């Protein structure tokens, strides 16, 4: 499983990196950068939450 960021959709709301600094960080332009793609059970739950909360619908989980 892997988190993907669609930069076209993203409007840099910051929800992902403020809620889940363990998975994302803000890059120099304000976009999220995925910093952890080895998702154990806990992190997978966090990633699912980030996908659900993203107001731009710019995140998805890919197998």
């Amino acid at each position, binding site marked *: 499983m892997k988190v993907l960021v669609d930069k076209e959709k993203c*409007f*840099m*709301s*910051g*929800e992902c*990196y*403020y*809620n889940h*600094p363990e998975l994302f960080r*803000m890059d120099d*332009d*304000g976009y999220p950068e995925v910093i952890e793609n080895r998702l154990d059970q806990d992190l997978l*739950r966090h990633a699912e*939450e980030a996908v*659900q*909360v993203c*107001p731009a619908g710019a995140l998805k989980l890919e197998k």
Partner: protein
Amino acid sequence: MSEETVELGPEIDPRIFDSKEFQKDPFPIYKQLRDHHPIYHDRFHNRWILSRYWDVDGAFQDNGSYDRAMYKADGPYDFGSRHVFGPNILEYGNSDEHRRLRNIVAGQFVGQKLQDFIPMIHQISEEVIDRFIDSGEVEIISQFASQVPIRVISNMLGLPREDEDTFVTWYQDLIAGLGFGGEHLMRGLNARNEMWDYIDPLIKKRSVDPGEDLLSRICTAEIAGSRMSSDEVKGFVALLLAAGGDTTEKAIANMWYHLMYTRPDQMELALSNPDIWENVFAEMMRFDPVVHAQFRYTTREIPLYNDVIPERAGVILYLGAGNRDERAFKNPDTFDILRDDLHMGRENRSGRYKDGKNGHLGFGIGQHFCMGYAMARQESAIACSKLAARVKKPRPKNMVHPGISSPSIDSGGFRSPEELIMEFDK
């Protein structure tokens, strides 16, 4: 963080922050702070002050160094909001508990869920305007700005419309109790208790038989399998009145104030263009927002401008000062709804924008960025554009106005005029 050199300037007497003069017109002091004391140690109030745009922005972004709550050994320090609101999101600092509560409710105020409520905001704005439109005069705060947001919240929660006036009374008592304390505090707490008694059975009912309203959504929203407790829902409803009602009321008042008295030459533009009210909102949130200051506690030593803020120190982030920083905005002391260096429209928690412009700091930035930002902007813009469309030749009743003030600007006091009377042709 900006690290340019600082030219020495006159000392600032920290007692100025308690003065009427500062509450009325803080901007000259803000400029002195930015230019000569970008890191200011206020020994009188035992706190530090940041005032430059990029320093305030940087502190908002830096969760590792600045926390919203002061932690004691056994948990976050209770800074009063629990006393009035019950358990609520404002108390949990940067903790996981804060994230849980925020994520349950944050989604209700953006995107499609917000759009579901928009037609109702249009309708309520029109109804409120109907009440005074034939009189040729409106006191904008009591008859308009304070009426729309609270009726909108009552409707969002799905309360019966016949209870709306009661809800407005609870709101007014609660806000008075918060703002002035003393005898008003008892009135505020009584209002809160009555409201909670009223809402308690509704929470029980909608938890098991939810509808499409906000109360049902809050009662049943789940993040990672966790719902809000009944007390948390009640705390949130009370908080919603202050954080969602009172602030929006004052935002609407400040928008009209600045068009009527600060830039009357831009009034015509706003009256003839319903789409421009999001610009009026954004520029008001930059030029003179409802909230000018946010408080943080340091979690470690912070070196800045050849000085060091110690660990566990109180820091005021003057976003009202950052918004007037020449380092971020051209002619910052000019109110201009056509400003080309300010990001207009949808704000971001990140404070970064694809158009490369700088955003106002009026909602804060980062982890504690205002949750109701999209709602506040859209509701204010809709209500104001409705009023603009219906008044003919509006003008201030009094050519001279005592101006905007704030009861306690540096403790998060909301800034707004006390009275604002507009005349128009019948």
